[in-house]
C-alpha cells in the first residue's frame, strides 16, 4: 500500500488516509482478510500522528471496511458471506415466484406444487450425478 498524505491541504488528514485505504481495497492492493500495517508503523513511516491514524482506523471500522482485533491489529473485512447468501436467496425467490404463481393458476394445490418442486430438485441432483459418472 502506497500511502501519500498531503499535510498542507485543508482536507483532514484522517480522511485522506481513509480514502487511500479504501482505494487500496477497491483496487485489490489489499484484499479481504489481509492485515493492514499497524498504527505505529504508519505513524513512523509517514512521520505522522498516531492518534490521527487511529482515528482513520476507527472510522473505517465503523464503516465496516476493516476489522480491528484487539492485540493483533487491523484486517480488511471479508466480503461478508452471510450478506452474499441473503442476496442469493432473494434472487432465487424472485425467479421462482412467477413459476409458483403459474402453477397455482393452473390449479395445483400447495402440496402438489411442493411435490413438483422437490421432484425437480431430486431430478437435478440425479442428472448432475449421472453427468459426473459419464465423464
Amino acid at each position, binding site marked *: 500500500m502506497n500511502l501519500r498524505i498531503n499535510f498542507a491541504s485543508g*482536507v483532514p488528514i484522517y480522511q485522506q488516509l481513509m480514502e487511500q485505504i479504501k482505494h487500496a481495497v477497491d483496487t485489490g492492493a489489499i484484499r479481504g482478510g489481509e492485515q493492514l500495517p499497524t498504527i505505529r508503523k504508519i*505513524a513512523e513511516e509517514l512521520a505522522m500522528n498516531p492518534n*490521527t491514524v487511529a482515528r482513520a482506523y476507527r472510522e473505517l471500522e465503523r464503516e465496516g471496511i476493516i476489522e480491528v482485533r484487539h492485540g493483533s491489529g487491523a484486517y480488511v473485512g471479508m466480503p461478508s458471506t452471510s450478506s452474499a447468501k441473503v442476496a442469493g436467496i432473494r434472487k432465487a425467490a424472485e425467479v421462482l415466484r412467477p413459476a409458483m404463481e403459474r402453477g397455482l393458476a393452473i390449479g395445483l394445490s400447495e402440496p402438489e406444487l411442493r411435490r413438483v418442486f422437490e421432484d425437480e430438485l431430486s431430478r437435478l441432483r440425479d442428472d448432475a450425478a449421472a453427468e459426473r459418472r459419464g465423464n
Partner: protein
Amino acid sequence: MNDMIIAADGLSKSYDGKPALRSLHLEVPRGSICGFLGRNGAGKTTTLKLLLGMLRRDAGAIRMFGEPIDSEASSIAARRRLGFVSEDKELYPFMTIDQTIRFTRAFFPGWRRDLEEKYLDLFQLPRKKAVPKLSKGMRTQLMLLLAMARGAELLLMDEPTSGLDPAMTEDVLQILADLAASDGTTIFFSSHQLAEVEQICDRVCIIDQGQSVIDGVLDDLKSDYRRILLVFDGEPPRELAELDGVDHLRQRGRTASLLAHGDVDALVDRARELKPSSVEVRPVTLKELFLDHVRGE
C-alpha cells in the same frame, strides 16, 4: 475528557507592567502531540517557562498530570515526569557527549538505555566528541536525546527543530511519532514551522498577544472552518461582517473573503441573499487559520 496532562486556566504574566500572557487557557490531553504556534513575542516561551516553574505566574491556575501546581514541591514533582528542550540548547561546555549523557542519566532513575543507544545511533553522535565542537544540529539532537531517554511522560520543547536541515527535521518528527505511538508520550512544542506542525500534531494551539485564539484537534479545525469567497457587482455589502459565524472578513475591491466556522451552509445561504455574483467555498489550511488569527486586521 478529563485526562489532561497540561491544563492551564486564566494564566497571566506581566513583565514590568507589560502583559505577556492575558488569561491564557490551554489544555493538552494525554498522548497528544500539540503544536504551540504564535508570532514572536506572542507569549510562547513565557508559557513554557510558567509550565516549567522557571517563572512565577501573576494569576491563574496550572494543573500538570492532573495535579495542581501551586507550590515549589508540586512543581518539582511535575518536572521529574517531563523532559524539556530549550530554545538555546544550553549544554555544559567542558563535557563530551558521553559525559553529558552520564551526568544527566544520574538524575533519572527511569533512564532508558535502549533509547539512548537508539538515538545515538540514529543521529550518529560520536560519544567522545566535546560539546563545544558540536554543530547546532548535533546540539539539538543531543538535547532531544537527553530529554527523551529519561523516560518522560511529557516532552516540552521550545522550537525543537530550529537550525536543523530538512532531513534532520524529518528524523526528529519520526522520533516524536514513534514516542507517541509506542510509549504514549505527550508532546507539547512551540514552533514557527507550520509544515512540521501539520505533519506531526493532532492538536494545535495558536496564541496571539498572550491569549489563545485557536485551540483544538487539527483535523476538526480543518472540518469546521471554511473560506467563503464572494464576488459582488459593486462594493461588498456591510451586512457581511454581521453574519453569524464569520471569524474574519477581508475585502479587496468587489471581492469579500470570509473565514467562517460552524454552520457554514447556513451562512452561505444568508450570504446568497445579499446577491453576490459568485460564491465559492474552500477548505482552509493551517497556514490560513494562523495568518487570519494573528494578523490583527
